[in-house]
């Protein structure tokens, strides 16, 4: 039988029962490897459930630094009898199955082409601990101990993580260390057949941090100066508001009075959430909400109002599988169309597309600036894969000389000096009018905000020319937005090529790896990672400079491709769909195979006549 032998390059998947305390032990496993200087990318695969249903934690270890999901499992740590059969089936031939051997299983429960490592964890724990809760919790730590022994993970590293976790709770610390070593000793004495997967100390982490995108987005809102957060709980975005609360409690509480320099309201629904941030934005506060697709659906009427009445607000949409309630705990990039064109009438919205926690942080802060500058709703479209998984990311950066861009807000002094104020008048040629905040001046600058048409001086009007002036100005403003949003990142191929690929968001790490793999096979593609909608001219130029462009995205309907076709009037034949939408994060293997297939088909197809 073959045997997977790999050092610092493998995938381990833990199959657990939700609510059994496995999450923290699994995280310790990933973090211990990280502390040994080896990049890891863990992913939670969890059900819409609090206790009892299956949950998985998949850890990719990659010294080469590939952070996308690889696909395939080299070792399954099968701790959940409910999912045994599918877990066993998922292991690569020659891979390993680690399981709790307390209860004997019939031979047909196993495969002959994988290596089985049994540890009677339950029996050991039952013999060691009286308390049923301890028996459960320490089971996870004993498994961690055994794996660390088998994989050469340094116990001192795990002990240090314990010490950080249980600072001030020495009793807990001691019992965890004991359980860890009990697991190590068992493995040393009884699992001599060993494991071909090894971790070896490296120096591949550098200054990088390990963080969830949702926490990073929340921190971006803190740094970007958001003071009002209104939200309604929805997976996978709830932890954005919760992290915002945590960071604000730490950084925005007046040390003397205990008073808060922020307001967080858990609203009665998403309609009220966006209503509140619309009111706050109108009144001069930086405000945001965090939601997911169904929430955006509920917000659409307000989005039309905010677009037309020109109210700054920020929406962090952590995308999940749709349609309807879809797959609430699985990832997709499927809210592009519904966000870009959200609401009734002619509307278009700015979307930012972060690839990792660092960009979640940067784009959240940028969104608050852009919303004020453009006086319009700005979406940060992240997804479950980035939002709810810890991801290795460059450290967050902030320049202390940076100032909030509050946009065109006319002051009392300017009004007093007689500056002309036309709320909906384009005086600067960029489509962006000036606004005043309520309460600014006793007799100048007040206006009536409405969703109905008005003239440049905010007077009610149903005249065609007034309507045209407004909506055409809004288009000019959108063109301005294309210049202000985060610009696309070009990743040129090593060799000159007529092929290209466009991608964005959480696809980026798998795409990086796929481009590397494709180049190794002689398929060279220029890559363009989009970071925002609307598209700047460089996107059009990039597409024009290539014969065939793959558009890789994680939804069924090729929504980004539709936006490109629609907004840039690209010939659809030029844009080939590469779509992954089963709810699991896209893998480099998938992209590589799909593009290879297309490229081979192109090579054999008759050449297109030049237009």
């Amino acid at each position: 039988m073959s045997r997977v032998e790999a050092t610092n390059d493998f995938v381990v998947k833990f199959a657990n029962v939700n609510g059994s305390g496995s999450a923290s032990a699994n995280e310790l496993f990933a973090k211990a490897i990280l502390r040994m200087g080896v990049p890891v990318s863990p992913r939670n695969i969890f059900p819409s459930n609090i206790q009892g249903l299956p949950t998985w934690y998949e850890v990719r270890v990659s010294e080469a630094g590939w952070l996308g999901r690889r696909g395939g499992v080299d070792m399954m740590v099968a701790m959940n009898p409910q999912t045994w059969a599918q877990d066993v089936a998922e292991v690569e031939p020659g891979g390993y199955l680690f399981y709790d051997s307390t209860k004997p299983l019939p031979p047909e429960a196993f495969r002959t082409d994988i290596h089985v490592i049994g540890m009677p964890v339950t029996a050991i724990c039952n013999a060691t601990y009286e308390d049923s809760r301890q028996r459960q919790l320490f089971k996870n730590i004993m498994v961690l101990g055994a794996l660390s022994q088998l994989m050469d993970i340094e116990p001192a590293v795990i002990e240090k993580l314990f010490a950080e976790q249980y600072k001030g709770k020495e009793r807990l610390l001691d019992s965890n260390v004991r359980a860890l070593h009990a697991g190590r000793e068992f493995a040393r004495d009884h699992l001599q057949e060993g494991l071909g997967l090894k971790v070896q100390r490296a120096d591949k982490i550098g200054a990088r941090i390990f963080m969830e995108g949702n926490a990073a987005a929340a921190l971006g809102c803190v740094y970007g100066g958001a003071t009002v957060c209104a939200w309604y709980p929805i997976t996978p975005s709830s932890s954005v508001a919760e992290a915002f609360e945590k960071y604000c409690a730490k950084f925005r509480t007046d040390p003397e009075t205990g008073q808060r320099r922020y307001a967080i309201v858990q609203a009665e629904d998403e309609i009220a959430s966006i209503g509140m941030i619309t009111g706050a934005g109108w009144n001069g506060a930086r405000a945001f909400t965090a939601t997911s697709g169904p929430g955006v659906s509920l917000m659409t009427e307000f989005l039309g109002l905010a677009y037309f009445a020109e109210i700054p607000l920020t929406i962090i949409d952590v995308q999940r599988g749709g349609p309807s309630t879809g797959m609430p705990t699985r990832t997709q990039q499927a809210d592009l169309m519904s966000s870009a064109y959200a609401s009734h009438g002619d509307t278009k919205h700015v979307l930012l597309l972060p690839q990792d926690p660092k960009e979640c942080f940067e784009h959240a802060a940028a969104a608050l600036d852009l919303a004020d500058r453009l006086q319009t709703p700005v979406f940060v479209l992240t997804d479950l894969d980035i939002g709810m998984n810890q991801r290795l990311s460059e450290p967050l950066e902030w320049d202390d000389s940076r100032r909030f861009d509050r946009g065109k807000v006319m002051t009392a002094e300017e009004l007093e000096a007689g500056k002309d104020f036309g709320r909906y008048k384009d005086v600067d040629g960029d489509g962006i009018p000036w606004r005043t905040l309520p309460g600014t001046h006793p007799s100048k600058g007040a206006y009536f905000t409405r969703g109905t048409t008005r003239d440049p001086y905010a007077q009610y009007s149903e005249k065609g020319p007034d309507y045209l002036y407004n909506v055409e100005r809004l288009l000019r403003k959108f063109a301005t937005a294309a210049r202000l949003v985060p610009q696309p990142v070009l990743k040129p191929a090593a060799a000159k090529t007529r092929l290209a690929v466009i991608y964005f968001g959480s696809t980026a790490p798998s795409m990086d790896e796929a481009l590397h793999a494709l180049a190794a096979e002689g398929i060279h593609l220029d890559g363009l990672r989009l970071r925002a909608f609307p598209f700047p001219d460089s996107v059009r130029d990039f597409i024009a400079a290539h014969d065939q462009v793959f558009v890789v995205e994680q939804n069924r309907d090729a929504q980004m491709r539709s936006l490109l076709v629609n907004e840039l009037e690209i010939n659809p034949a030029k844009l080939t769909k590469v779509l992954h939408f089963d709810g699991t994060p896209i893998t480099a293997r998938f992209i590589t195979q799909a593009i290879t297939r297309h490229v081979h088909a192109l090579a054999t197809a008759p050449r297109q006549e030049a237009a």
Partner: protein
Amino acid sequence: MTYIAKPKLHHPSLAKNAVGYTRRDYEGKVSTLCAGCGHDSVSAAIVQACWQLDIAPHRVAKLSGIGCSSKTPDYFLGASHGFNTVHGRMPSVLTGANLANRELLYLGISGDGDSASIGLGQFAHAMRRGVRMVYIVENNGVYGLTKGQFSATADRGSVAKKGATNTDTAIDLVSLALQLGATYVARSFSGDKAQLVPLIEGAMRHGGAAFIDVISPCVAFNNHAGSTRSYDYVREHNEAVSRIDFIDLAPDQRARGDEDVILVPQQDGSLMRLRRVKPDYDATDRIAAMNQVLALAAAGEIATGLLYVDPQARDMHAGLNTVAAPLSRLAEAELCPGRAALDKINAGLR
């Protein structure tokens, strides 16, 4: 009417209040509502209350939803910022505006369709959050702007102009507000300015969620022959006390009742009986208020006046423990933790 621009000149002899404004400084555009609409009387009462309370107009933010009533913020306080939002969602926008700047006076204008039908949820949650505001519902029991459909406050058995009979139970917003934790709850009649203006003043001085249900008859859909609200009848009885374009029905209505009861003719020819609460009524007892409202309702009457007030009301900001300064005015130094703090966060994430 609406095509006539209102002259901006003031008569020099107009009286000024303590902050230097004449009553005309509190007016807005010419109303585009129907002649004789009760809503215009409410607008006039708001003008009167703000002037009497010496409130600088620009320190008021007026917000509304959609509907006839929600158009009215354009017709008063022209020097205030106004926001005509979306149908039924004024409460959330007002809540957010209040979160951003707690220093302004928030005036929410809504109707029975806006607050009791599409916006019932937001109405309820704004009350229970204790948003400091004056929330006025101009309640006429019909959808005026879409021409006469029943609203959720229409009484069961009432008949619409087109002949349909309402078979659903009416929602009483006053009872709801009392139950949901509003700390100032009143009801009045658009034709009873003597009662309405002080109630609005009290609401403006209140430190929490203040709600006033104003019975405000719809002339357009109560205009049939024999009605005391027919266009001819109203024109004949116009007292011309208006400073904006409205018709005050109060003197006429009062003549039809005794001192404590006002009779308001309904579309179907019946009379709505509004009973003023007695001078010895204890308005600080929420349970007594609920009893009073329900007892009168059972007797076929509607309680008016200040029904409940908690003089020690706390508002949403007290619950959130926000700083005294408006959040909208906080700057980088107060909001952004800076690079050193971020470096520490980074260090904790390795």
